[in-house]
């Protein structure tokens, strides 16, 4: 197939009551079937509209509120796909696996690939020095059933998020890819997207065409919100990304989408209601082969070719999600600014429609190790609206902006070729690609 129809479902997960002790297996299955009942409606709707595959969110079957012990009744033995198993046809082959059986039958009965996130358990004993004291490993696991109901992929999440104490780390990274009539697919989960391994490896080294991405992502403005971050990642890695997020406004969880190397095909962001949402879009099955496939960007070419803009004003420091940025204020309605931190210098040229007295913007730079909820090295150039006109609020989350930018060009002297370009408008909306572009020399710039 040259093209295929992809579906993503943002699911408002039905979450079990918090309990430290395990519930009976029947109660666990009841809760999981309530969630799968909702997913089933989305699967049928997507299949009726011709979708070849549907991606559902991480924790979409049982939620995320668990101790290690309380999670156990929700787990099943998930075998390696090499066993060539169709749970719908042979449900007893690997013990009691009602969830896999139901998902497999859903896929088979609706002739659609289904991507879901469930829990895998693997018994172990004292001969394994790393075996946990309760005699089993518990893994956060993505599964894929093909349109005949066959288990074709199993991925154990490698980069667990700090609160995921109910799961174990797999011993090694797994690079899970598989071929389909609509291209080579890769798969990983949520926090993995910050990683080189597996996230970049499956794209750059294993050359997948599309990435399946279940996630349970809570939004943290200004730089770590789901839809902007994931759509930027897809553009930077030049790959299709099918991102299904959980929906829970209390936890600021929303932001799913279907993203491609050229831009956003569909996305959903809803902090007003508690309902789920199905998105579909037709995608190129093998984007690399398309004449429209974007050329690689040299992210520092432009910034290294220009002299830093001189400025009489002093820089100031500000925190963005525990990272200390170096900022400079945009004082007029138009201008050129440079701000530097360590090896990174960020250049901005801009023109506002008018300089509002009630809104302040700043240009910021960060070059260093991010230390909270994971440790990873960043180089970030950002233009952002400060929460108030007090410069001490630059970096704090802001929801709306009324200052219109007629022109802008943002670039940086990056020491990496992995740079994700984000552009977020008032109300956390993504900017349509017709308004901006990423030039080959590394400028995020307005289309004049």
């Amino acid at each position, binding site marked *: 197939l040259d093209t295929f129809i992809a579906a993503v479902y943002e699911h408002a997960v039905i979450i079990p009551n918090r309990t430290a002790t395990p519930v009976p297996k029947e109660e666990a299955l009841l809760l999981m079937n309530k969630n799968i009942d909702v997913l089933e409606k989305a699967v049928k709707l997507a299949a009726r509209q011709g979708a070849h595959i549907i991606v559902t969110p991480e924790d979409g079957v049982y939620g995320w509120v668990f101790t290690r012990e309380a999670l156990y009744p929700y787990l099943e033995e998930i075998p390696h796909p090499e066993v060539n198993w169709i749970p719908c046809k042979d449900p007893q082959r690997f013990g009691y696996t009602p969830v896999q059986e139901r998902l497999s039958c859903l896929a088979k009965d609706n002739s659609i690939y289904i991507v879901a996130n469930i829990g895998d358990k693997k018994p172990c004993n004292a001969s394994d020095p790393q075996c946990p004291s309760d005699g089993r490993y518990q893994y956060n696991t993505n599964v894929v059933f093909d349109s005949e109901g066959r288990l074709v992929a199993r991925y154990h999440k490698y980069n667990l998020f700090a609160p995921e104490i109910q799961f174990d*780390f797999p011993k090694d990274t797994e690079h899970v890819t598989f071929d389909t009539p609509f291209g080579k697919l890769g798969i990983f989960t949520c926090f993995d997207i*910050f990683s*080189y391994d597996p996230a970049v490896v499956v794209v750059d080294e294993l050359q997948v065409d599309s990435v399946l991405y279940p996630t349970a992502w809570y939004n943290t403005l200004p730089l770590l919100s789901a839809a902007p971050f994931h759509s930027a990642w897809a553009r930077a890695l030049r790959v299709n990304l099918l991102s299904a997020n959980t929906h829970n406004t209390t936890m600021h969880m929303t932001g799913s989408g279907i993203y491609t190397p050229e831009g956003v095909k569909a996305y959903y962001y809803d902090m007003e209601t508690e309902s789920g949402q199905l998105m579909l879009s037709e995608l190129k099955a093998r984007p690399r082969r398309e004449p429209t496939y974007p050329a690689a960007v040299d992210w520092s070419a432009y910034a290294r070719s220009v002299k830093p803009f001189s400025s009489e004003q002093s820089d100031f420091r500000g925190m963005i999600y525990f990272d200390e940025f170096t900022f400079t204020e945009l004082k007029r309605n138009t201008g050129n600014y440079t701000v530097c931190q360590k090896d990174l210098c960020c250049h901005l040229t801009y023109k506002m429609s008018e300089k509002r007295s009630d809104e302040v913007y700043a240009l910021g730079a960060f070059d260093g190790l991010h230390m909270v909820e994971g440790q990873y090295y960043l180089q970030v150039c950002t233009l952002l*609206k400060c929460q108030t006109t007090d410069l001490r609020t630059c970096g704090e989350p802001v929801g*709306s902006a009324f200052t219109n930018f007629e022109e*802008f060009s943002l670039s940086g002297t990056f020491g990496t070729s*992995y740079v994700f370009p984000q552009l*977020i408008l008032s109300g956390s909306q993504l900017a349509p690609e017709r308004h901006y572009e990423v030039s080959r020399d590394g400028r995020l710039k*307005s289309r004049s």
Partner: protein
Amino acid sequence: GAPLPVLVMALYGRMFENDPPRLGQGPGKLQ
């Protein structure tokens, strides 16, 4: 292009070669 009410614009670079072996989830969790 029309004027845009910009909230945030960012170039978010990842320096993978400097990262720890696993994206740090606290020493207690590492096997």
